[in-house]
């Protein structure tokens, strides 16, 4: 590693539980403030000031919860799988803990995406649920999260559990492109993607700008809850090490 200085020092330090605890401790307040500001601003903007949809009226406003949570549920899965791969390949303990912390957060966000989708579907499509490709693949995502969590729960040895769950989440990664392209491959009821990197959104600016704020807010919120869980997990797994004892006695 002597020759490659292109990665900053703190990036390597993240691999050590102790430094990771310190760094996330410093980042946490910033993310918390950003999450609260973005979510409050985004919600007020979306619910009170964004113009109503010409077809759906005000019912479309649930999109401002539904779309960010759907995006985040997939990002969280990718993070879980990537962290699992990092843990498998480089045997970094912190990566295992990140993957472990991602699973319950991702599962609850996937539930939120499905629930808001159902509530939105009732007035728009006339039914709570349709067996459409996008909905089914999201449901599979939730099942995959549950499988990973069940695997963690079934194994007593933390290292083995982390490796096994990483393999499972890497296998489940095939579902992510299916979710992403389900609305393009199958011509179904669910509308196409709201945001793409290459094209302008089909919505007017005053509608998608609050959505962007909400998406960013959700990511910040995810950062906060991930860091909180990660810090708990670090303390729990490193409870026998000296620095944790010092930390606890100094409180």
């Amino acid at each position, binding site marked *: 590693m002597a020759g490659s200085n292109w990665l900053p020092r703190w990036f390597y330090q993240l691999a050590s539980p102790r430094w990771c605890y310190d760094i996330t401790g410093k980042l946490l307040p910033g993310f918390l403030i950003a999450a609260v500001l973005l979510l409050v601003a985004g919600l007020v903007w979306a619910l009170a000031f964004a113009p109503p949809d010409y077809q759906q009226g005000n019912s479309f406003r649930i999109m401002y919860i539904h779309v960010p949570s759907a995006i985040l549920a997939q990002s969280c899965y990718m993070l879980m799988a990537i962290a699992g791969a990092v843990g498998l390949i480089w045997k970094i303990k912190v990566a295992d803990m990140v993957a472990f912390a991602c699973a319950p957060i991702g599962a609850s966000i996937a539930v939120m995406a499905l629930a808001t989708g159902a509530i939105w579907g009732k007035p728009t499509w006339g039914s709570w649920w349709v067996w459409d490709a996008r909905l089914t693949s999201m449901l599979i995502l939730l099942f995959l999260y549950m499988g990973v969590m069940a695997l963690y729960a*079934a194994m007593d040895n933390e290292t*083995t559990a982390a490796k*096994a769950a990483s393999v499972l989440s890497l296998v489940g990664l095939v579902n992510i492109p299916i979710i992403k392209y389900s609305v393009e491959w199958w011509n179904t009821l669910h509308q196409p993607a709201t945001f793409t990197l290459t094209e302008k959104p089909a919505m007017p600016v005053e509608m998608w700008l609050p959505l962007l704020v909400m998406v960013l807010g959700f990511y910040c919120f995810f950062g906060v809850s991930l860091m909180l869980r990660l810090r708990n997990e670090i303390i729990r797994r490193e409870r026998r090490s000296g620095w944790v004892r010092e930390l606890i006695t100094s409180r």
Partner: protein
Amino acid sequence: MAELCTNSAEISLGQLFSAVLKRDLLLSFRRKSDLVNPLIFFLMVATLFPLGVSPEPTFLADVAPGVVWVAALLATLLSLDGIFRSDYDDGTLEQVILSPQPLMVVCLAKVMAHWMTTGLPLALMSPLLGVMLFLPMSAMFGLVVSLLIGTFVLSLIGAIGAGLTVGLKRGGVLISLLVLPLYIPVLIFGSGAVQAAVAGLPLAGYLALLGAMLALGIVLAPLAISAAVRISVTG
């Protein structure tokens, strides 16, 4: 295990594959009940539907593709635990991992043996269930071919779950939780093929998709299976 225990790395991959395949087939033919049980289960699940839902021939013909496929999926699921269980219990799996042979090839051969003892007979028996459920004769070809390809994919995916849970005492329900979400796409295209056959539509698209899953599975699943087995045995 005589063929595998040689410490020389000179045995070719083909020889290794056929040695493991032969051994696993021999072992399962010695325990006939393990061979027959999934088939009886398959038959019984298909019997539940006319009795539990409706014996109406038109209704049964409508649901037959899905019922046969779900029954085959569940029968495969129940037999998964056996892929590695006895080898894990008597320590053979540990010896295989310690041997200089690539674990991936051994795993692929074991999956192949599992498919030949569950998926293949299930597919061959499916026309009987088709008749029981009033599936039109024109759809039988689609049913058998889709099950032939599909059950191999199910065995490949299922072996990943079997490998992950082989070290656990209570792996039974867990393996279903891990594997079922990954089975859903196979089920969708498999029963889709049969439904297309019932409606007289071309099957090629569905079978091509199942074949693509099989190709992807044969290439990638052994990697995941061997990683899973290694984790379970060393952990």
